[in-house]
């Protein structure tokens, strides 16, 4: 039997990250980048937001919000390097850099969200 690819795992992270990045990040940009600073919506203030972040569900949500788009980036950037710069022969390096970067970002997000008090 020919070797099955592990791409499905990477692609599903890529797709999930794309959905998160396309649907959720614009909401955050709108709220924190436009609506609160311009006073369109009442500013919740630092203390209330911190209380919100302390809730475990918010932490899980923010973890997903940080992690999945990183894997989306990793996949997209890997293929951009392959096809755009045509350096597929550096596959191991590119692979490690892209998905390693996403994993490092995920670990950093996890650490910060875990330790916030």
């Amino acid at each position, binding site marked *: *039997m020919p070797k*099955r*690819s592990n*791409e*499905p795992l990477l*692609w599903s992270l890529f797709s999930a990250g794309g959905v998160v990045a396309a649907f959720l990040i614009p909401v955050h940009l709108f709220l924190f980048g436009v609506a609160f600073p311009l006073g369109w919506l009442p500013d919740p203030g630092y203390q209330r937001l911190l209380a919100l972040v302390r809730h475990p569900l918010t932490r899980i949500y923010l973890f997903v919000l940080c992690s999945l788009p990183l894997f989306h980036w990793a996949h997209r950037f890997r293929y951009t390097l392959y*096809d755009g710069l*045509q350096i597929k022969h550096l596959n191991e390096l590119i692979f490690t850099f892209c998905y390693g970067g996403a994993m490092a970002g995920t670990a950093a997000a996890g650490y910060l969200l875990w330790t916030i008090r």
Partner: protein
Amino acid sequence: MADTIALEVTRYCPERDAEPSFQTFEAPLRKDWVVLDALNYIKDKVDGSLSFRWSCRMGICGSCGMMVNGEPKLTCATFLSNYAPGPIRVQPLQYFPVVRDLVIEMTDFLNKLKAVKPWIVRREEKPLSAGEYLQTPEQMDAYKQYSMCINCMLCYAACPVYGLEKHFKGPAVLALAQRYNKDSRDQGAGERTDLLSQEDGIWDCTFVGECTKVCPKNVDPAGAIQQYKLTATIEWFQSLLMPWGAK
């Protein structure tokens, strides 16, 4: 409107020429003429040695695909007047080896096509006396769009991934595999999985989408490939979680 238009046509005879060159011909610029009519005019009246493939002249046979001003086109459906005052540059479909002039070598495509079993696969054929395999209009709609493919290979000439990865199965082959996978009469999806789920099956595709854009029959190979990526991903997770399950 001027009464003639210039065509810069690729001339190449691999046994004789070191590399392809262009030769310019003048052809009548008639309102009802397509690029293929101009090529036939040149072959009949000016230079009988010009080589190109064509057959039906009506967008059914898929033989006359060429690059027209850098875009993959069926030359039988590409009107000269759209390119007036010219010149029009006519080249063989890109990313394929050239046999001569505008004729490309398509063995690679045909081998890949055959490999995905583009026919209805049955575990057991019904005897003729048992009658037809019936299908509802909804079941037919599931695959009909893909069955419109005429194997013209414009999607290969449009696909930058195929240009880089010669092993990539490519848009039409993957769309035709889906055409049979989605057919309620077919039972061959399992036999096609191993081939389609490889790196050079669906996973080389980066969803550029040019294949769908250039298709003269409005097939959506890019969509077919994305659909199959989802199918393959679900199967991958299933075989991971339930390795004992039958493929």
